[in-house]
């Protein structure tokens, strides 16, 4: 459940974030930046403001109003959902059981085996239908405990009111424009994660993975024989996504 709320919010944040960027497709480092200062880099796209010199002979319609309302609304929902998720993975044991990799998995030998099987686009074996492999574990941990906190932090660092109460959120990043630039790069990292995530689902078998994600169950009859599967079934791949419902 938290997974799908996050998905919906992520797309809302991505689309509205792009709309906001279009109104000033230039990025800076430090405290300030505007059309009179040298950008770190620019996106070669048209803008929704005539103030910005883009080289295009036209100005796109302004979509910032609703984009900003929706961006912050989706941010609230995804942050609250994320908090619920993080609290739940500590208490349900999902974090220790499924997300933190075991010591044996972190050896170079084990890692290279997993990487090699990924490079061959091999379909995952039976064991992986029940839990995450080491690369999944590491990338999920990175998204949950590095990218998400970083995008929330850099978002808050752009708020003049928030930083008036907690100035260190922005000074530690080198300034408000630095926060904006980092926010942009973290978005790109999250989009890359999403693309790989989608490709992996397709490789693993779209139908069975989607069934598992939506219902939280794995097709038990096919995978396990001679064993009564009851509660255990719901601890599979994406069961966490439904645990908090």
């Amino acid at each position, binding site marked *: 459940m938290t997974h799908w709320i996050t998905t919906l919010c992520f797309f809302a944040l991505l689309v509205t974030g792009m709309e*906001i*960027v279009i*109104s*000033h497709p*230039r990025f800076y480092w430090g*405290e*300030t*930046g*505007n*059309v*009179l*200062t040298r950008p770190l880099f620019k996106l070669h796209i048209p803008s929704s*403001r*005539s*103030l910005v010199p883009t080289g295009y002979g036209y100005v796109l319609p302004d979509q*910032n*109003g*609703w984009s*900003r*309302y*929706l961006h*912050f*609304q*989706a*941010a*609230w*929902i995804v942050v609250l959902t994320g908090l619920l998720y993080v609290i739940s993975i500590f208490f349900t044991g999902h974090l220790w059981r499924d997300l933190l990799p075991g010591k044996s998995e972190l050896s170079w030998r084990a890692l290279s085996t997993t990487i090699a099987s990924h490079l061959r686009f091999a379909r995952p074996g039976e064991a992986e239908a029940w839990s995450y492999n080491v690369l999944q574990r590491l990338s999920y941990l990175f998204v949950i405990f590095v990218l998400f906190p970083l995008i929330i932090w850099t978002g808050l660092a*752009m*708020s*003049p*009111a*928030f*930083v*008036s*109460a*907690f*100035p260190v959120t*922005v*000074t530690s990043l080198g300034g*408000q*424009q630095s926060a*904006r630039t980092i926010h942009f790069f973290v978005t790109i990292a999250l989009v890359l994660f999403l693309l790989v995530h989608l490709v992996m689902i397709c490789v693993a078998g779209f139908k069975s993975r989607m069934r598992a994600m939506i219902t939280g169950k794995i097709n038990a009859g096919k995978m396990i024989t001679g064993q009564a599967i009851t509660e255990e079934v719901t601890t599979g791949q994406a069961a966490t996504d439904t645990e908090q419902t």
Partner: protein
Amino acid sequence: MTDLSRRKLIIGGLAATAGVAGLGVAAQLAEKYGLIPPDHGGIYGLGTTLTYASQRLLTRHSMAREFSQSQISRPPLANEMPPLTDAYKHLQAGGFADWRLTVTGMVDRPAAFSLAQLKSYPRRSQITQIACEEGWSYIAEWIGVPLSHVMDLVGVQPQAKYIVYFSIDPDWWDSIDMADAMHPQTFLAYGMNGDELPTGNGGPLRMRVPRQLGYKSVKFVTHLTVTDNLKNFGKGLGSLEPEFGYSWYAGI
């Protein structure tokens, strides 16, 4: 139905009831403590209300970051704006000698101030950042009189909740709550970087609200009114911004 699912159902029901009751109490408390923004209706009401309420609780007395002289952006950016009105050009031709700031509403002594009068009050300055919702920003030294000083002169009545401010451009007005209005960094600014405030940056008189985005810092201010209710201004959303789809509160 097994015992387990019945128990789950009962617990779930109780939790939902408590949740709804909790929300009701929270809404009443929020209303009482002025944590509900005027544009709380509509599909985006939830997000903007959460932002306003939480930031009000965190930032009631916090000070906007101030910078050093060396961090001032030179030259200061003059943003795009609609063409100057004839009324503005007329006053500009007279060197703004006839520029007046009128103050009405819930005050004991409604008044009209000339620029010379405003400049005779304690002169304050701050080096703060102005950040636009579009993403750009600049740092400048703003010189003026704190709005709270003017409010003390006219005597704000205790039931006041908002100050509505109007530009000489009839299509430009906004409002802030008393927490921002009485904040020591909220200025009626008439100077910038040691000089007069240029027209491009809102001269001769600009509202400066440094803890919110640039669009709350309305240029060419000629009129203030103190009120306890924003319903009778425009469409009742607190400023012109929500009528164009922008949020009233712009702490972000």
